[in-house]
């Protein structure tokens, strides 16, 4: 499914009025009446169905603050919690999130919960929420990036590791290829000299 905001030609965070107005305009455009007996009726029908679905998703998000399909589904309440976390008030954000538990349905709820724990450094708590957020909204890059970074480091990878590629953190001969290459060069040179003399 495409991003419902994109389907309705809206910016993420659009108000209820904007969503309704956009839906009305598009619905008139693709209305079945316009395409009656047209060879394009089927295509119009498909687009109408997409618009309907997008409208339902966005309205659902607004009403419940949820909407698993709405990757950008951030109503003002979530925006406020996001701001709290950015200001460093992670505990307050967590309290607000727990007041209205939408862990089962909302990617954003899970992501914000994870972010608040992440801010505090409680990574063991943060990881499952990041995972849940990106499984609810697989298309959301922000969720996916946060999740995969933490999983990556959980398996022992470190960003910017100058010793990377060496087994179990112990620097071995990481330039084996180079050694082999040099040996080959050496051999060639030796044979070359032998030939000359």
């Amino acid at each position, binding site marked *: 499914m495409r991003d419902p905001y994109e389907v309705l030609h809206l910016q993420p965070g659009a108000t209820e009025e904007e969503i309704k107005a956009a839906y009305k305009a598009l619905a008139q455009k693709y209305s079945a009446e316009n395409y009656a007996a047209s060879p394009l009726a089927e295509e119009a029908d498909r687009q109408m169905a997409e618009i309907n679905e997008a409208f339902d998703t966005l309205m659902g998000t607004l009403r419940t603050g949820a909407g698993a399909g709405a990757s950008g589904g951030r109503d003002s309440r979530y925006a406020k919690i996001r701001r709290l976390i950015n200001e460093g008030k992670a505990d307050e954000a967590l309290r607000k999130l727990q007041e209205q538990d939408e862990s089962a349905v909302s990617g954003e709820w899970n992501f914000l919960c994870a972010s608040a*724990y992440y801010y*505090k*450094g*409680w*990574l*063991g*708590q943060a*990881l499952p929420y990041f995972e849940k957020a990106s499984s609810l909204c697989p298309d959301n890059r922000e969720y996916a990036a946060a999740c995969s*970074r*933490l999983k*990556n*480091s*959980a*398996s*022992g*990878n*470190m*960003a*910017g*590791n*100058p*010793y990377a590629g060496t087994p*179990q*953190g*112990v*620097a071995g001969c990481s330039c084996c290829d180079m050694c082999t290459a040099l040996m080959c060069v050496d051999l060639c040179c030796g044979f070359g000299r032998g030939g000359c003399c």
Partner: protein
Amino acid sequence: MFGYLTPLNDELRIREYRAYRGVYCGLCKELGRRYGQASRLLLNYDLVLIALAADGLAGVPPQLSPERCIAGPFARHPISGPTPGLALAADALLLLSWYKLRDDLEDEGALRRVVSGTACLALKSGYGEATRRRPELDALFSRCMARQAELEAAGCALPDEAAAPSAELLSGLFAACAAKDEQRPILERYGLFLGRVIYFLDAAEDFERDAAQDRYNVFLRAGVCREEMLCQARALCNMCAGEATLCYNLLPLQENRALLDNVMYLGLPQSILRIGESQKDKRRNRHERPI
């Protein structure tokens, strides 16, 4: 304290090894100068990292000069002279040791209590001196120790929560290494994650002993078996070390980078790899002594 934040010696260049050893010995001498000869017995490796970070950020290289040492009086070897970083490390070490001893006085068996009590008496004047020099660190350590005791008394079973006081402690300690104010937030977060790694490593190492002696251990409270505990603790440590590295990479170190790189990217992962090993196992598995 812990001994987890050390370099992997096999991978050090000789001059880096000399510098590390010089700073380690320098910390020992600094303790003697500031707090009397008895305090030199408190020496440990973790605080060397504080000295290296603080001087590295301030652009002060180790002030190495050949000196004799009480532990090897016949040969001179390079030992670092006083630096601001060593002063910070010595003060922090004294304060930490004081709180550790006070803690032992309450928890440990009779013999350890006598030893800790004697040590406390010997350190009392040094503690007063250190408090005068670093009142903010003393307040921080005292607050974190109290919080840790509270969590333990409440039987906290959540590793992330139980590690919070250690995280706060190291966060404040590393923040004190800042050469400029804008480095503080980076150092705070760096310390926050290192504190967590250390707490988890420590809890994993004490797991069996705590089980046998029926003492508090967050992983015991969480009700997991040893294998499961090691798996959980390793993942937690890896994540925290990964985050600490992201902070570390932002630090504008002017000195000691090669040494600190080794500690972060080789020494720390090595400690995590050996999670759960007792001190005895570690000694057996190590091919050489740390220094």
